[in-house]
């Protein structure tokens, strides 16, 4: 059930021989950022396919035909039990194949194959509730959580992020500071103990931090919009292949998405028309394309 049938045909024709980077973008059941994420991948040069979750759960589409699996933002299943909970539950327990196989089993295999998983906002919440992030212990059990913002409110506001210097994830290669909007009510990362905090820090898995005007990590509202532990806006797993973040890079594909675009363009009329958020998608698409070309040669 790809959203556009011709895209699906396109995908099938290309799948065997083509070296294009193939991005799978899940949708359905309240996910609502699939269109702009697909646009982000396409602008970055990948082939993006939007697929309804049931197509994957029922076996009509295999995630293994793709290079990067994406969980977009939204309100999966209404988020009534806590953001991402019902979707994570479905991936963990709903049997999709013989022998009690679940989609989570497939995702583990997907990661073991060296492929990539991206979760944004609600998608990040799903990866955290599943235990795919941060997965310090390697056994995919939840180690941290995301819950209600300290303000108690859903908020849409732009924030500034710094990339952890020790992060190894290809998604963030070459990036230092990034501006993006947050749009969530449950984005406060809670790390339950000092040991976990230490382990995250040591490995640089807390790959994105909210920073203040001076460029320092901050717990101050509104620069840190939710009161997250470690001022953390995003996590990777130890392989760097699984990456999730609360803010929305796909909402900054064009320079004209930024709230201050008009003044910035006045000051710098020749600046690129691309938004900073697109760089994350360019990074991963280039990284995968490079891997493909190495394999091909």
């Amino acid at each position: 059930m790809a959203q556009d049938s011709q895209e699906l045909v396109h995908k099938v024709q290309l799948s065997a021989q083509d070296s294009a980077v193939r991005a799978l973008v899940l949708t359905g059941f309240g996910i609502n950022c699939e269109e702009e994420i697909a646009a982000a991948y396409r602008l970055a040069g990948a082939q993006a396919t939007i697929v309804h979750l049931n197509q994957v759960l029922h076996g009509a589409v295999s995630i293994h035909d793709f290079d990067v699996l994406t969980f977009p933002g939204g309100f999966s299943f209404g988020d009534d039990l806590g953001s991402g909970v019902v979707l994570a539950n479905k991936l963990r327990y709903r049997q999709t194949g013989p022998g009690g196989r679940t989609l989570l089993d497939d995702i583990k295999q997907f990661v073991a194959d060296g492929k990539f998983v991206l979760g944004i906002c609600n998608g990040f919440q799903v990866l955290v509730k599943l235990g795919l992030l941060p997965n310090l212990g390697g056994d995919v059990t939840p180690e941290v959580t995301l819950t209600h913002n300290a303000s108690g409110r859903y908020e849409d506001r732009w924030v500034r992020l710094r990339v952890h210097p020790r992060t190894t994830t290809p998604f963030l290669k070459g990036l230092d500071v990034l501006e993006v909007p947050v749009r969530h009510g449950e984005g406060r990362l809670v790390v339950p103990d000092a040991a976990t905090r230490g382990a995250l820090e040591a490995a640089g898995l807390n790959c994105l931090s909210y920073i203040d005007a001076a460029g320092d990590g901050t717990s101050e509202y509104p620069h840190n919009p939710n009161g997250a532990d470690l001022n953390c806006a995003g996590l990777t797993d130890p392989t760097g292949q699984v990456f999730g973040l609360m803010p929305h890079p796909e909402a900054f594909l064009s320079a004209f998405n930024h709230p201050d675009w008009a003044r910035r363009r006045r000051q710098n009329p020749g600046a690129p028309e691309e938004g900073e958020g697109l760089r994350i998608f360019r990074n991963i698409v280039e990284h995968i394309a490079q891997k493909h070309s190495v394999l091909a040669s």
Partner: protein
Amino acid sequence: MEPTTHTIQLTLKPGQHDGDGHRVAAAAARHLGLATGRVRTAARYTVRYGALSTEQLRAFATRCLADPVLHDVTLNEAVAPVPGFAAYILVARGPGVTDDEGTSAQNALADFLNEPLDTHTQHIFSKRLYLLENDLPTADLRRLAEELLGNKMINRFEVGRVADGIRDYTPRPGGGAEAITETISLTGLSDGALVQLSKDNIYALNLEEMRAVRDYYAAADTQATRRAQGLPADPTDCELEIIAQTWSEHCKHKEFSAVINYRDLATGEEKQIDSLFKTYIKDATSEVDRQLRANGNDWLVKVFSDNAGAVRINADSLFVWKVETHNSPSAIDPYGGAITGILGNNRDPLATGIGGARLLFNTNVLCFGNPDYDGPLLTGQLHPRRILEGVRKGIEDGGNKSGVPTVNGAIVFDDRYRGKPLVYCGTGAVMPMQFAGLDSWEKKIDAGDRIVMAGGRVGKDGIHGATFSSIELDESAPATAVQIGSPITQKLAMDFLLLAARRGLLKCSTDNGAGGLSSSVGELAGISGGAVVELEKVPLKYPGLRPWEIFVSESQERFTLVVEPGRMAELLALGQEMEVELTDIGHFTNDGSLDVNFDGQPVARLALEFLHDGVPRKTLAAEYEKPVATEPAIPAQTDYTDTLRQLLGALNICSREAVIRQYDHEVKGRTIVKPLMGATGQAPQDAAVVRFNFESWEGVAVSNGILPRYGDLDAYQMSAGSFDEAVRQIIAVGGKLPNLTPGDGIFWSVNDNFCVPDSVYDPAINPDGKQKLAKLVQMCEALRDATAAYCIPLTSGKDSMKNDFKADGVKISVPPTVLYSMTAKMEDVRRAITSDFKEPGDVVYLLGETYDELGGSEFYALHGELGAQVPQVRFAEAKALYTLIGQANDGALIQSCHDLSDGGLAVALAEATFGYGCGASVELPATGLSLAAQLFSESHSRFVATVAPADVVAFEALLGGRATRLGTVTDDGQLAVRHAGQTVIGAPTTELRHTWSNGPVNQLLGVDELAGFGETTGH
């Protein structure tokens, strides 16, 4: 066998922040004066599922419901009181009330057990438990429950002492009332009895209409036909309900179609108006369309004939635009009213033509009483603060959870909205010109096509919504008129509809809104010429609905689809795959009648001709008397800095940031001009700009014009001014007027929404009805003049005619209000203009002329005065100026542009500094106007604009006398306004911004300090 009932309770682990508890404690102290002490919250789930063992229950609770980092889990008997808490409040839902959280838990249980759990029977009931440290008396607990934690229309509360044990409440399944259809004899009923019957059954039909129904059934040919068809001689309950729904003011717009005898008491002029709708709206748009087409602009595709109007964006796609109100439901259940308002309005563009448009954005305009109102409340009346908070939350969930950005809006405060608030919801969408080779905007139906109901199930919610909103509200408002929205149910149905349309599976579709199936099938039947519905097939939320209730229920999130028989199998398979319930409930015919059966027995059979055209036309009287008004004598001042501060902190001017930020205004990634912009993220903008997709830079500008205060002085100018306000907001962001050049293709699409008090004269209950109706006539005349002047067409609209709240012998009526919601094509969104000053050295201009028009102004309101000289719209001058501004923008000559509205020039200048903290140094010209008029007059069709020094010569040459050079943007962060050598306003702009952003609205919503994004950087 009765399934076992289990209870699961989740409490936060010690040390985890209980934000909800903190908020309840703070709100109880702040709004109710109740000292709760600490408040702890817990989530409770009652599980009624037969086959579940205790071990499965525990595993389900700990692995699926609880967050291992946050929650402790207790089960059944182990649900024990928490030490240190004396009182409790349990908030549950009433029987049949939508419980999305319970449904989600049920979904999780099905996944966990790997069983296809029947999600249409409620097995899990969610509740919220609040534990209070202080031992509050029962009355206080109940007050807290009813005023802060829930609404007694939809919730059930248990309160008491923890020591006495926590009482639980779980709704029982429906009682299984019989599916009976009764007949109601109208034969020989007196006028009084007819009116009483209409009132008792909430038909909302007047005497003349009831007589028409009685006479129709008494007519010999009706009798003969009914006998021949085996129908009872008397009407069935279902038939009367269908007639009442179809003839309701809400659905039929009887007052906008009435004959009006109008008299101007001052001039003695008399005239007869043959339908307001036809005269001032439909005919005016036809004339605009004629002018457009004559000039090669043929983008007006669909007006007034479907759920939403449609205009052509380009060769491939249409823009679909609809704005509606949801006032009555929002008065009694603000959250439910607003959320169903949004979702219901979303369904209009979704189900225009074939259906399946992609929603692009929402916009909302809200009118409330003063949230600080401290007078008495009438029976059944909610406090304005509660209405505001509930409506705001409803918009948050309705928009955010649907993935539709709320790109702008407005909030208007006036104490006359404290009985009934006005909740306007607008939705824009994009639809391909064709689906599977068929024109997407057409609705075609042939006999034999199937009727399919898609989406939610039917319950008792929303029964009589259409008729109920057609009468004034009183203390006996029926609980069943409340509808609860489920954004997630609608999102699934919406995703399905998009795909079904693109696969060519739909012939057409419509939404089930007011009037439910009765309205949707009744209207569609008009296309083919008849329909047969098998009501027993309609899936119910619970048993116990009578046939007529099933047919008129307004249970939400439903669409009616028209499907060719050959497409049914593919359609049903798609529904199953996407988990959207589809039910074939009948088919269309061409025999001229609407047939409704239950279990093979007829419950209604109505001739479509009578149903759609049988309603008697109303004749109404209007009399206009100009209100007596005088200009006040307000002593002149030499320094107006404090006045400006007061205005920036005034309820109708201050920042709405705390509201705006809780709406997602950028999901879909297409929003270019958002409600708040600039480096600070705090500069208010005039109109939103949204691009259509990621492949082109084409987009649409969106604005709203509403100025109810001026109506106290002059209803015509109020309406004209509202129209102009919306136009100039679009001009301010870089939009252009339509039809200035042949074939320019710049579409404009406008929705009018009239919300007025009861305007039907009645000597006893509405003695000033003629005057109110005269005001409505004038508002419509202004609308006609405005559309003609700017050549801007209306494409759809709505009227809400009974915005009165009556209780305890008191009536609170809204002021006559009209909202114009405008959209206009932007050729290139990169050329959009924002309101904030960009660079020191830029030259500041006032565009347009200022007049001595302080009547109805915020400046006068500050002094408790209304005044007399209301701002006039001078259409020809305005159009000339807007055309010049469009030309200046073509040359990229304008750096910032902000329209002048509430608070006049002084407020606009201050707001333009909020984006970056620039200052401005301004010298007011010598004119014949008073200083107060120069600063605070709200004369229409004006802007503050800035121009880069290099462009000044070209700009002045183009604008000529229409631009008055005021001064320059400065880097000293001071707003300095001088007049005749004296400083009349002088203040740091950060301080002014602080005053504006810490005004009453943000204070009310508990935002202590709104620091802006990056405001201290960049210099």
